[in-house]
């Protein structure tokens, strides 16, 4: 279970958002919404442990993130805005490398099956350079099919996908939730997912950091 309390994010001198509370339990999803620049990506990066929160704290399974970090990262799959696809590697090599970096090496048969299921049949050995935007996105999403992670944090997973792929991705997400997985994602479109879920709306607060007391020892 991922729980966060009082999260705040600063960008330069501006406070993007503050006092964000959220809680995601097994089988639940959370959609983060907000205008451009509201801090959606910043929030996801914060939750993934990539950047420190300006304020507030995050708990994983009831333990503070500082303690639980290793366990958390072993059970987390984060797909950022940049899909970590190397142009010069084939779809298959991209998928296998990404899985190996994430600590779960894939054998070729499993990787090929995942690529075929995501709709890249016949393109497994093409360099990513010649794939379209949507196809590159699918290579990244193929990781979901082979993932054992309990929590998925996906930044704009539906971007650049065609209608069929959106439906398919929804199916994959539903399966994950049905297995008791957790999901946090950002999207501008309304998505129908199974299981219980919530929407978190980030409103861009434009006021400067005026009231913020300088902390003695910053976290």
């Amino acid at each position, binding site marked *: 279970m991922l729980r966060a309390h009082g999260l705040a994010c600063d960008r*330069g001198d501006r406070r993007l958002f503050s006092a964000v509370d959220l809680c995601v339990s097994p089988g639940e999803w959370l959609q983060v919404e907000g205008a451009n620049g509201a801090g959606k990506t910043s929030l996801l990066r914060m939750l993934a442990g990539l950047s420190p929160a300006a304020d507030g704290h995050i708990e994983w399974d009831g333990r503070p993130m500082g303690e639980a970090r290793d366990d958390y990262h072993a059970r987390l799959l984060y797909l950022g805005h940049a899909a970590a696809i190397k142009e010069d590697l084939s779809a298959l090599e991209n998928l296998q490398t990404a899985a190996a970096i994430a600590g779960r090496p894939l054998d070729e048969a499993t990787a090929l099956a995942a690529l075929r299921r995501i709709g890249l049949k016949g393109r497994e050995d093409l360099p990513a350079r010649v794939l379209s935007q949507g196809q590159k996105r699918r290579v990244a999403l193929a990781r979901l099919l082979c993932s054992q992670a309990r929590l998925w944090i996906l930044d704009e997973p539906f971007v650049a996908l065609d209608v069929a792929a959106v439906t398919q991705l929804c199916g994959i997400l539903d399966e994950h939730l049905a297995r008791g997985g957790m999901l946090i994602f950002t999207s501008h479109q309304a998505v129908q997912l199974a299981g219980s879920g919530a929407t978190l709306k980030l409103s861009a607060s434009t006021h*400067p*950091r*005026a009231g913020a*007391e*300088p*902390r*003695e*020892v*910053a976290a």
Partner: protein
Amino acid sequence: MSQRLVNWFKFASPASFYPLAGKMWPWFAALGTVLAAVGLWISFFVAPTDFQQGEGYRIIFIHVPASWMSMFIYCVMAFWAAIGITFNTRLSGMMSSALAPTGALFAFLSLWTGALWGKPMWGAWWVWDARLTSELILFFLYIGYIALTAAIDDPRRADKAGAIVALVGVVNVPIIYFSVKWWNTLHQGASVSMTKAPTMAATMLWGMLIMALAFWMYSIAIALYRVRAIILERERHTTWVAELPEMQR
């Protein structure tokens, strides 16, 4: 012990350090001026003329303390960097970046006076002496630090990156010094050495020590003054800065 630690952290907050630094820097500046006057008087009028080197040797009263300071300030920067990385205090990074220009200045001064000294002594503006070469490399390290912190827009990020540079640099300074010395002995033997000043007269030593103290006071004063400017710049959006009397005008 813990009580004292807490007290120290009180001054680690820019808001409480700013007025303290404001009170302290004029004292250090005044002390520095007095010491410099005494030191210069000793070096120009009291210290005897060197029978080998004539009057030209008097530049060492600037040269040697400047070299000491340039090395010492780098170590202090590294110290603040280590504090900043361990305790994540904001003031440490500000102190490091406030010290860097002064350190670079002393390194440059040391090189310049070294050249001025070298011309009458060795007949050349520049000699690849181990110490001068190390000083030159130290100057490059300072320039690298300043250039990197200036190139990063986010001050917090600049501080952290600068801290790593300072720490990597301070680990490397002894290695560099040792390697340059090794290189020097391999290539020319110890034919030219600045340490060969034969039995230094006591007055000369005193002159140098007083000048070193004067430089020390100057460095502290200017670092405090500069850190105040840095604090104001970075904290300009906070309420405590807005409430400062000098901001009311």
